[in-house]
């Protein structure tokens, strides 16, 4: 997981003191081999297997009702969790970067908690809380509201694992930008909300999009936590990653890899957009620094 802010890149040219050419070439070759074997090859396998029986089989397995239901559930889960984590992330980053208060380091630690907890545990805690034998399960069951083994449980588990993404992206960025501009705005009579929308948001927008993007990728790709709370009802509570496992277990390899190709496609798009956002963010920072220097 990349929690290091991209703006911290300092050297514009790599330092090459004393390394012999062959060392450099060997390292580059090694890196390329590792990338090829562990990243490119599996990705190629996904596509080769997905199209093993041609376009027709690929298309028909993607339009199968169970696959469509899985895609729908995955999109729905992301559509609920991503806005929530975004709101949380912005407010948490705002609080941490702008104010000094007691328990601040504890808060930062808590935000990181989902990174350090295994996703399976994340799923299990919700079973223990909302399951039929859990703390609140009987109450929900009496009121005819399903949490576990239904969509709410899947959303909760996904929320848990995606919680830190936006906040983690914004905290270092907002600390780096500082709060001079905001103070200026406030002293000129802007309200809190005006300052936020006119000053803060434009400053952090690329970083924010970057966090949202990573959060979305994880929300759509999460397997472990969701697997525990899903109940695996086909066509109903299987998200795309779970659907891939189900298809694979049913010897439906084209179906499994066709669904996998969707997630792989999502990964590639995420990567491209991510690179663009990083670049954009750097440009913005440079521009604002230049502007600050010329004053």
């Amino acid at each position, binding site marked *: 997981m990349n929690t290091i802010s991209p703006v911290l890149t300092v050297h514009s040219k790599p330092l090459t003191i004393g390394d012999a050419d062959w060392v450099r070439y060997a390292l580059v070759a090694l890196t390329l081999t590792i990338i090829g074997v562990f990243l490119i090859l599996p990705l190629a396998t996904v596509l080769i297997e997905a199209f093993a029986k041609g376009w027709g089989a690929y298309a028909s397995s993607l339009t199968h009702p169970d696959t469509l239901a899985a895609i729908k559930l995955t999109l729905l889960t992301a559509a609920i969790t991503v806005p929530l984590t975004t709101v949380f992330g912005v407010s948490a980053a705002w609080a941490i970067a702008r104010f000094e208060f007691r328990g601040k380091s504890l808060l930062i630690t808590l935000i990181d908690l989902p990174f350090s907890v295994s996703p399976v545990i994340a799923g299990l805690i919700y079973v223990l809380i909302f399951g039929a034998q859990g703390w609140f399960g009987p109450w929900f069951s009496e009121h005819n509201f399903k949490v576990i083994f239904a969509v709410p449980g899947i959303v909760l588990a996904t929320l848990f694992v995606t919680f830190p993404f936006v906040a983690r992206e914004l905290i270092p960025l907002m600390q780096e930008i500082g709060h001079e501009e905001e103070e200026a705005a406030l002293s000129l009579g802007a309200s809190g909300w005006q300052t936020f929308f006119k000053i803060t948001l434009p400053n952090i927008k690329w970083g924010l999009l970057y966090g949202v993007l990573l959060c979305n990728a994880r929300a759509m790709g999460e397997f472990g936590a969701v697997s525990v709370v899903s109940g695996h009802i086909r066509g109903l509570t299987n998200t795309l990653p779970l659907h891939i496992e189900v298809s694979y277990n*049913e010897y439906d390899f084209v179906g499994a890899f066709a669904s996998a190709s969707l997630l792989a496609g999502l990964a590639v798009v995420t990567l491209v957009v991510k690179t663009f956002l990083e670049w954009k963010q750097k440009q913005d920072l440079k521009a604002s620094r230049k502007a600050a220097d010329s004053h």
Partner: protein
Amino acid sequence: MNFTKPSKQLLILIAALLISGTALAERTLLNVSYDPTRELYQDFNKEFIKYWKDKTGEDVEVQQSHGGGGKQTRAVIDGLEADVLTLALSYDIDQIAEKARLLPKDWQSRLPHNSLPYTSTIVFLVRKGNPKGIKDWGDLVKEGVSVITPNPKTSGGARYNYLAAWAYAEKTLGSKEAAKDFVKKLYKNVPVLDSGARGSTTTFIQRGQGDVLIAWENEAFLAINDNENGKDQFEIIVPPTSILAETPVAVVDKIVKKNGTQDLAEAYLKYLYSPVGQKIAAKHYYRPSEPEQADQADLKRFPKLELFTVADKFGGWAKAQKEHFDDGGTFDQIYAP
């Protein structure tokens, strides 16, 4: 930023997805089952939906959930709302009756043949030509034989595998101590414990691990007949003795009352005993409880072997579970990963 064009397309896609997923059925039934019954119930559900429509005019939907039997049981206890259970062993349904009180303890006497519309057994699947010469349970503990079987803690099928090996050893070697030693040696030959039977089958077939797969008879048949090149790659070895796998079904009283699906759930399970249900079971390599209803050609595929039951050899599932698979039982004592 101008997102108008892509977002229009996105909206159309979302709309299409929403429409496609909308269920037309009035009532739905959730069948929570164990791993290898996927194909059986895919077929059976289609037939049942047709039958129910003809009989009552009502459109119904049957949803399926599959996984290792133990895991599925746990999920139902934790609140997965199963209308009907079609599990691998009666102990799992006993657990649901006892821990979650969702159905009465005498559930097994409510349907014919002890609530067993079909049974199965445990056989071996080996690589073509049987290079390691596997013929009986005793061959599984030989040095250099790699055995694939799932984890008995999470898989019902794996518990049958374990008990079948144990019963063989106790009979041929004469004592419980010797049997324990035998299964210890056997599990030393197991490189990976998957959580369900289907996981083990893919480990053996797709990833090419192991020399022998201890498998449900229907899983073994499926691997050979429904898989491309299955016949060229694998063969089934039937040991002289094995265990009768009693795979029961039950309606979950509390859930069907809550969902208003009692009549539907009961009809669903009864239909398993009908000629149509029995034929489908036999077609999918389950041994039908009323063989006269099934196709003779399907029945001929089942090899004859001596089958013993859990009740005969182990005094029932409750006792077997406590002695062998609960925490601190013989499996915990013999298995060191």
